[in-house]
């Protein structure tokens, strides 16, 4: 357990890398989306421009205290995920603070940001926020079902909940990756990931042309900037988590970048093909195929 | 119709029970334990030549007290149930006139009936009869009086006195049994006297007289109450 300043600074560096990589990924995603629909899309550096603009806006409006600290919660959620996930295998520096908790901690820390965001947005009193949140929560309950099943399956397989140990167990070449040794769990988790990233067809939370971007609809300026920052971190952190669990982890930042990119774009590609679900459709869908696959994943290890 | 058959069915069941009871009865050749004792010792212990009286008044005198109580209760209940409020009394009830024959005959017979009744209970320990038959006979005299004169009303005061005094007398005699003899209602408070005489068998004649008076009074009371009840407005 290392609480030193050095450790802290290294972690900050990691965070910086992750943030930038996340922003790059998001611009790439938007470009791909644009290309699919026959547009040119934004330049790759657009997110940085947006961020600078947001942080430097002069007018800052707030609906109240919770509204104000909601984004902090949200960002804490993303940063926390990053802090508790070991990024690069075998390197204590890039393992961040993952010594303080295992996979379960990650699974539950997701809620930290969600809840804070939900509360902050709610205080705005904007109906779209509340509708978006209710949709998000509804969908999230079922997204987590295949994920939970997959995690249980992994835990049975590796007899551990420690992410580092799971990665360690996959260090015997590509065939020892979970995606080969436990394909059903991988499939279930990857399907769940589609929902977690919230791209089409599961983008009913932000549903831009329905309830304009949903929960954060009242946020702007610095607050929105914080949320954007968080989005970048969170996407990478989640992809890194999947990478660690199913795809052998990363031995270096390079490997991490490749793998998270592929994981992230799995959801982007799916999203460009399918139209948006309605809430009950989405809820039912997760409880059908992905759940069954998840159950099979457990049965295979019984 | 179905109900009739059900009733018949149930009665058939009761018939079965009664038949079994009948089959269980085999007649008697000798007396049972208790009866044998009464036959052997009744006369000397109680001094009454009528063994039934000995049993009724002494051996099982407590039953008799209950019995008297029942009549007493019945009379009491009837008189409060049939009590008519003053405003409900029909002033002039239309009455069918009694025939001359009944009217005159009753005047002659009633005293005789009373005499017979008194005779029956006074001699209860010697001959068949006793307080109850005697009382009933007296009450029949009262009934005759009511029949012959529908307006005849039984004097509550007299009846109440007779009733109370005889009742209390009965209980007091019983208590004297505890004080002066073997137990409640023991007849040996007085000497047994000569077997077969009127004044014999201890206090049996007194008890039977009280019973007779009380029974007569109760029954008369009941008759009076019922008769009086006809005066109620509908």
């Amino acid at each position: 357990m290392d609480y030193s300043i050095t450790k802290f600074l290294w972690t900050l560096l990691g965070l910086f890398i992750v943030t930038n990589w996340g922003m790059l990924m998001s611009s790439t995603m938007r470009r791909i989306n644009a290309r699919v629909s026959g547009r040119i899309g934004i330049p790759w550096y657009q997110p940085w421009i947006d961020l600078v603009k947001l942080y430097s806006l002069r007018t800052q409006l707030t609906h109240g205290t919770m509204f104000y600290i909601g984004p902090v919660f949200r960002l804490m959620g993303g940063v926390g995920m990053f802090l508790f996930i070991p990024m690069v295998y075998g390197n204590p520096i890039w393992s961040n603070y993952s010594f303080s908790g295992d996979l379960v901690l990650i699974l539950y820390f997701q809620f930290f940001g969600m809840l804070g965001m939900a509360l902050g947005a709610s205080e705005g009193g904007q109906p779209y926020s509340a509708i978006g949140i209710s949709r998000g929560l509804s969908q999230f309950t079922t997204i987590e079902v295949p994920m939970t099943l997959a995690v249980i399956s992994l835990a049975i397989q590796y007899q551990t909940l420690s992410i580092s140990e799971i990665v360690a167990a996959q260090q015997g070449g590509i065939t020892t990756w979970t995606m080969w040794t436990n394909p059903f769990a991988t499939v279930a988790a990857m399907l769940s990931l589609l929902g977690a990233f919230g791209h089409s067809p599961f983008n009913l939370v932000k549903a831009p042309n329905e309830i304009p971007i949903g929960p954060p609809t009242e946020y702007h300026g610095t607050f929105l900037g914080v949320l954007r920052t968080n989005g970048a971190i969170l996407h990478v952190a989640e992809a890194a988590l999947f990478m660690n669990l199913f795809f052998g982890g990363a031995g270096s930042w390079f490997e991490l970048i490749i793998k998270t990119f592929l994981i992230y774009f799995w959801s982007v590609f799916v999203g460009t093909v399918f139209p948006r679900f309605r809430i009950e459709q989405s809820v039912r869908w997760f409880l059908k195929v992905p759940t069954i696959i998840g159950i099979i994943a457990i049965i295979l290890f019984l | 119709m179905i109900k009739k058959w059900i009733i018949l069915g149930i009665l058939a069941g009761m018939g079965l029970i009664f038949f079994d009871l009948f089959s269980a009865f085999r007649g008697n050749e000798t007396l049972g334990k208790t009866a044998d004792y009464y036959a052997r010792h009744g006369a000397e212990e109680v001094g009454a030549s009528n063994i039934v009286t000995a049993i009724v008044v002494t051996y099982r005198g407590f039953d008799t007290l209950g019995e008297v109580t029942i009549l007493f209760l019945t009379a009491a209940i009837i008189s409060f149930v049939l009590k008519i409020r003053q405003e409900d009394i029909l002033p002039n009830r239309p009455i069918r006139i009694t025939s001359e024959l009944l009217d005159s005959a009753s005047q002659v017979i009633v005293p005789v009936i009373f005499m017979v009744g008194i005779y029956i209970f006074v001699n209860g320990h010697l001959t068949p009869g006793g307080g109850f038959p005697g009382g009933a006979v007296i009450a029949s005299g009262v009934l005759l009086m009511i029949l012959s004169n529908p307006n005849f009303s039984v004097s509550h005061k007299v009846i109440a006195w007779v009733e109370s005094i005889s009742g209390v007398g009965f209980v007091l005699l019983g208590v004297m049994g505890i004080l002066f003899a073997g137990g409640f209602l023991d007849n040996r408070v007085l000497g047994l006297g000569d077997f077969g005489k009127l004044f014999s068998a201890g206090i049996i004649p007194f008890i039977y007289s009280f019973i007779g008076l009380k029974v007569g009074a109760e029954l008369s009371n009941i008759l009076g109450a019922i008769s009086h009840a006809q005066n109620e407005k509908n």
Partner: protein
Amino acid sequence: MEYIAISTGFALMLLGLWGILSQKNLIKIVLGFTIFDTGINIVMVSIGYVKGKAAPILDVINASEAANKIVDPVPQALVLTAIVIGLGVTALMLVYVLKLHREKNSLDINSFKDLKW
């Protein structure tokens, strides 16, 4: 002899019961009871009968040999009591009938079903 008496008693009891259970007129039901009671009284007396013995009154019979000469006095004493009780109950029932008649001007047993369930 005693068999005839006791079976008559039972027959009367059945008859009385039939009256109680099937008659619709309250007075007849009360009459059923008196018949029923009479039956019981006959049964009781019959039970105390001892073949060929006399009534338990020791005016002619000598007290010393009474045990072999008289019938059982106990049932007779009981019957006496039972009759009086029967009388009391019957009187009470009749008064009830009287009052019931006043109430509804009817003696039909089916008119008195106000209390149920």
